[in-house]
Structures are given as C-alpha cells and as structure tokens.
C-alpha cells in the first residue's frame, strides 16, 4: 500500500463522458418519440361520416330492360370509382355513396309507388330519375313535392322541363331537340342547298328529336321536302322512302330504334338507290356495333347522333384549356372500370349518361359542402364542369345546355366520332354511296 490520500475525488473525465452520452441518447430518444407521434397524428385518416343514399327506380324488365340494365351498370361503375377515390367530403367528414334501387318494369304506374317508398321508407337523400322520357315525366313531380334533387340521365325530351315548372329536376344528358343539331349544322356549313327528308318513328322521343331538327333546319333556311312518321310496328317503308326520293330529297334523317333503322337501310337499297341519299343520319341504330356487322358495306358513311362514345377525348387537359374544372375518371378509365366490373363489356352511352348523373351529383354535393337540397341544387345551377361524359351546365329550368351530342359515322368498318371537331377522331365523309 503506497498512496491512501486521493480516495474521495471521482475522476472527472470518464464521468462527464458518460453524462454527455447519457444526455445525448436521452435527447435522441425524446426526439424520435416526438417525431413519431407527430407523424402518426398528422397521417390519421379523417373521421368517416357515413354513406349518402341515392335512390332511384330503373327498368330491369319490360320494354326498356336493355337500356335500364346498361344504365344501372354505368351507375354502379361510377359508384365504385367515387367510393374508391375518397368519396365526397362534407363538413370535414368523408362520405361514401350507396344505391337504393328498384325495378320499375318500364311501367309509369310503378313510379308513383316506388319513389315515395324510396323517399319516405328508405330515406334516400338524393334521387336519380328512371330511364326514358315517359317515366322521368312520371317521377319529376315527386322531386319537387318532397324537395329532393333528382338527376335525369335517361329522359331527354325538352318538354319535360318546358311543359311544366321543375325546381329540382336536373338534366345531365343532352336534350332531345339537339340530337340532330350537329348533323344539320354540318350540312348547313358544307352543303346548304341540300334538300332534307325526314322519316321517323311515331314515339315520343324520335318524333320530338326529328321534328326539332327539322324546325332548326328551316330556321337556317334549309329546304325540308318530306316529313312523315311511321308507327313503331311498321314493317315496310318502301312507299315512304320512294316518296322521299321523288320529292327530290338529298339527305335523309330520322329513324327511331334499332330494327327500324335497319329496315330503312335495307329498303334504301331497293327503293332509293340510283343515286342513294347523299347524307343519312339515323337515331339510335347507327351507334350499335351490330349495325355495321349486319349491313357491312352499306353502313359506310352512315351517321348517327350519340350522347357519348368510348372514343371521345374529353380529358383534364382539355378541361383546363377550356377554363373548366374536371372531376371523375377519364373516358378510358371509365371504360376500363366498366369492363372490369361487367365481364369485359364495352359501355354504351346509356351507361355513361347514367354514371355521369351520379358523378355530377357527387361533385355538386362536395362543392356545396352540404346535403341540403337547396344548396346542392344551387351548386348544380351554377357549376360548369367537364367530366368523362362531356360538359355540364344547366339553365334556370334545369335543361342541359353545355353537353354536346357527338355524331358518329361508320368508315371502312370502324365507328368514328366525326363531330364536334374538338373531340373527334375522324372527319365527316360525304356523300353516302350505298356501299
């Protein structure tokens, strides 16, 4: 034992190093903890508010069953998109949509029982109209009586809005009176001296759309030389087509549905063939793929109006250049999502117009930041947007004024969108040659 003197004083260097180390580690731990908590708290999902119920009747059976089912599939596709893309946010909460629908069997009598059930029993907050002008007419008064917004996707007859004052019925699709306006405008711009013949089915939609087109043509000083309707059960139109030809017509517009469109085309071959009409535009039939496969060559250069085609080029960029805001999937995304939900089927325009009605409604609710009917209806009345279906803007009555019909034309076996020019993928060919 040599040095017993320095026993109490702790060695300064080793203790201060441990202290620094200890303080350093403690500081680090606290820093990480605070950061983790901060990150966790800031990335928490917003509170879920619930589901918004949208109610409607749709024709799953009866004469509109094909269009009704397509429309329903379109609505479900858009529902899938909205709910999968964050739903709508109202007052800081996120809401999803749910559908409450019944089959109305294409019968107006069922509208009066189904919609009250949807409104009162099922407590739907918003409504979609049924398919077809007739059924929409029957459903419209309920929207106002029960103060619910109703989106019309399948009833295009202007008279629904002009024959009666509607407060809450909003039209998403183009109105019937402008169905053939694009075709008439094109004729007026390129062949103004052409004489027009109209042969159309005697049902509410075809008659209204064609007669409106004729009125429009006459207001542009184009000559209308033949104007005749036929009952939907007609099986032979040779007399009418021959009379139209004899009246000196150059162009033929009208038609009605698929079978009569085919009938007209088939009988043109034997009655109005040398030369055939220079321009043919028929309602509904032309947009069907089967039109071309059944008529082969004689379908070439036939045009027809459509509310929407998969080939349209509406897009967020286009919206931006037009100064409009965009909402929803692109046409391609809609088509793809529809296909994945429906065994690879391609959506027809019924699906698109119906889906768009739900889409526009969702956007309006979000903009209004409320579920109140008046607030949402006011938004619908003032908004001007673009979506995969086209533009949306309504006038004071609820009629659609910004959406444009597209004109399709079969060219060399493919269906091209030829009008309006800014979303077309082909240009309108003239004349029709019958082969």
């Amino acid at each position, binding site marked *: 034992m040599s040095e017993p003197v320095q026993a109490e004083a702790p060695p300064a260097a080793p203790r201060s190093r441990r202290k620094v180390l200890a303080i350093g580690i403690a500081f680090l731990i606290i820093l990480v903890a605070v950061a983790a908590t901060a990150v966790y708290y800031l990335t928490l999902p917003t509170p879920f508010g619930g589901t918004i119920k949208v109610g409607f009747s749709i024709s799953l059976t009866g004469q509109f069953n094909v269009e009704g089912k397509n429309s329903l599939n379109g609505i479900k596709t858009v529902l899938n998109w909205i709910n999968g893309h964050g739903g709508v946010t109202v007052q800081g909460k996120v809401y999803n949509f749910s559908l409450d629908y019944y089959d109305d069997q294409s019968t107006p009598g069922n509208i009066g029982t189904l919609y009250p059930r949807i409104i009162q029993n099922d407590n739907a907050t918003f409504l979609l109209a049924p398919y077809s002008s007739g059924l929409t007419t029957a459903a419209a008064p309920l929207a106002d009586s029960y103060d619910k917004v109703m989106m019309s996707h399948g009833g295009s007859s202007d008279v629904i809005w002009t024959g009666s004052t509607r407060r809450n019925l909003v039209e998403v699709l183009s109105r019937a009176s402008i169905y053939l306006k694009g075709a008439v405008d094109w004729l007026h711009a390129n062949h103004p001296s052409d004489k027009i013949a109209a042969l159309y089915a*005697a049902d509410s939609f075809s008659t209204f759309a064609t007669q409106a087109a004729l009125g429009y043509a006459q207001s542009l000083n184009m000559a209308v030389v033949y104007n*005749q309707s036929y*009952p939907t*059960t007609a099986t032979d139109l*040779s*007399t009418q087509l*021959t009379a139209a030809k004899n009246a000196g017509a150059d162009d033929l517009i009208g038609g009605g549905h698929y*079978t009569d469109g085919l009938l007209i085309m*088939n009988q043109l071959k034997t009655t109005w063939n040398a030369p055939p009409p220079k321009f043919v535009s028929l309602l509904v039939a032309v947009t069907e793929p089967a039109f071309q496969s059944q008529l082969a060559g004689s379908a070439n250069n036939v045009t027809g109006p459509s509310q929407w085609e998969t080939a349209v080029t509406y897009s967020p960029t286009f919206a931006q250049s037009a100064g409009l805001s965009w909402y929803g999937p692109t046409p391609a995304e809609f088509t793809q999502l529809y296909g994945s939900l429906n065994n690879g089927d391609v959506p027809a325009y019924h699906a698109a117009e119906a889906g768009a009605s739900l889409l526009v409604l969702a956007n309006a609710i979000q903009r209004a930041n409320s579920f109140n009917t008046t607030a949402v209806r006011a938004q619908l009345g003032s908004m001007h947007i673009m979506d995969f279906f086209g533009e949306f803007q309504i006038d004071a009555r609820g009629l659609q004024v910004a959406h444009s019909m597209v004109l399709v034309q079969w060219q060399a076996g493919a269906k091209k969108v030829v009008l309006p020019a800014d979303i077309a993928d082909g240009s309108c060919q003239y004349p029709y040659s019958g082969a």
Partner: protein
Amino acid sequence: MADFVALFLTDLVLGLLLGCVLAVIAHGLNIIWGVAKVVNVAHGEFIMLGAYGAYFLYLYGGFNPLLSVPIDAAIGLVVGMGFYFGFLYRELRGKESMGLQSELVTLVSTFGLSLVIVNIAQSIWEHPVGILWSPGAAQVGPVPVPFGGLYVAVVSVALIALTDLFLTRTYLGNAIRAYTQDIPATQLMGINPTVVAAVGIGMGFSVTMAGGALLTVWLPTGIDPTKIGILYAPISFVIVVLGGPGKMWGSLVGGLTIGLIINVGQLFLGGSIALATAVAVLTLIPILLFRPEGILR
C-alpha cells in the same frame, strides 16, 4: 303523274306479296278455328316461336330460313297436338259443339297462355329476331320486286294449296272436314274424333309456325318478337273472318285484301301507314255486319 303510277304499281305488287305472307300466317289460325272452332288468342305467340325457331336454326345450324320452314312445320305439328291434349281435350271430349262457356274458357285460357309465352320469351331473348338473308330484288319496270318476298309468296300459296289438297283428297283430310261439320256423324262413320281433332289442330299449328319462319324471310331486318303478337294476331283474325273461317282459300283472299289495303291505302292516306292499317283492320266490322260468312261463298 308518272311518279304516282310508279308508286301505285310498286304498292300493288308489294301489297300482293305482303298479302301472301299475311295469308300464310293467318292460315294456321283458319285451320284451328275451322277444325276445333277454337280461337287461339295466343296465335301471335306461336308465330313468334316459329320465327325464333328459324332464327336459331340459322344461328346454330346455318339453315337458310326457307329450309327452316319444313322443320318448323314438323315442330308445329308436335306442339299443336300437345296443345290439343293439354288444353282442348277436356273441353271438347264428347261434346258435339263448343258451348258458349267453353268458348269463353278457351278464349281466356289461350290469352293467359299468350301472356306466359311472351314474357318468358322476353326474359330469355332480348334481341329482335332477324336473319339478314337478302337475296336482292329485281327491277321490273318501276317496281323493285324483292326476291325474298317472292319466295315467301310462292311458298305461302303452295302451303295453302297443300292443305286444301290434303283436306279434300285424303282420307284423314276428309275425316277432319267431317269432324268440323258434324261430330256424331263422324263417330258413326267409325272415325275416332280425338285422333282427327288432334291431327287437325296439329296441322294448324304446323302451318302457324311455318308462317313464323317465313316471316323472318319477309322481314330480314328483324322484328321485336314481343311486337309480333300484338300486330299479327289481330290481323290474322281479321283475315280469317274476311275469307270465311274454315275455308282454306279464304286465307289467301283475306290476306290479299288486307295486304292491298295496307300498301295501296297508304298512297291515298297521305303516306300514313298508321291510318292504312287502321282502315285495314276495321274492315272486320262491315264484313261481320253484312257478310259474316266471309267473302268466299
């Protein structure tokens, strides 16, 4: 003027062709009505089944619709006999004629049947029935004569002639005619009324379904099947009454009359098919008022 003449000739020819089609469609009803004194309200629906038969034979077997005619006829024979044993046997067995109550029952039950058939068809098959076999047309002067229509007209007349021959020249045919006139006498001649009635009605359905097949040739662009019944059933009834129920050639006379009124009538009614058809079907009324046994004596 030349235009009008051309149109008139066209309508005349097409009216005659249409008349032959309508005749064969009504002919089946004529036979059933004549044999069993039964008006099959579901007539239109059996025409529809015939049209579908031809359509599916075309789709899956590639059969030219004209070839489907005999096949449909064979199917119709079986269907008709089934119809007899299913529906009418109870009512007609042992009776000497159809009472008013039986008439009511068959009218109502066949209309119920039509509801069933149409709605089953509507739920299974959604698309219009049409076979786009277009053999073209020949231009005879100002008149475009469609070959399809021509074939149908020829086959229709042939079918009517065949049934007429059968009923007058064969033993069974004569037995059927005897049955329609007097059932007890027929039994006294040793003929089994059940067999005779079954064959007669089977023949009626056979022609009906063949008519349906022919309709697909006449209307290559197709027709909504649920509309077939609504349109062709009343027209068939009117044709049979016009020609005289039970008179075979009456179908042709009635058919041609209606076909001409519809087609040529349009010319004089401002091109309105609707009014021409209304006039055509309303001819039933004056015929029933002034010549209820029909045009043919």
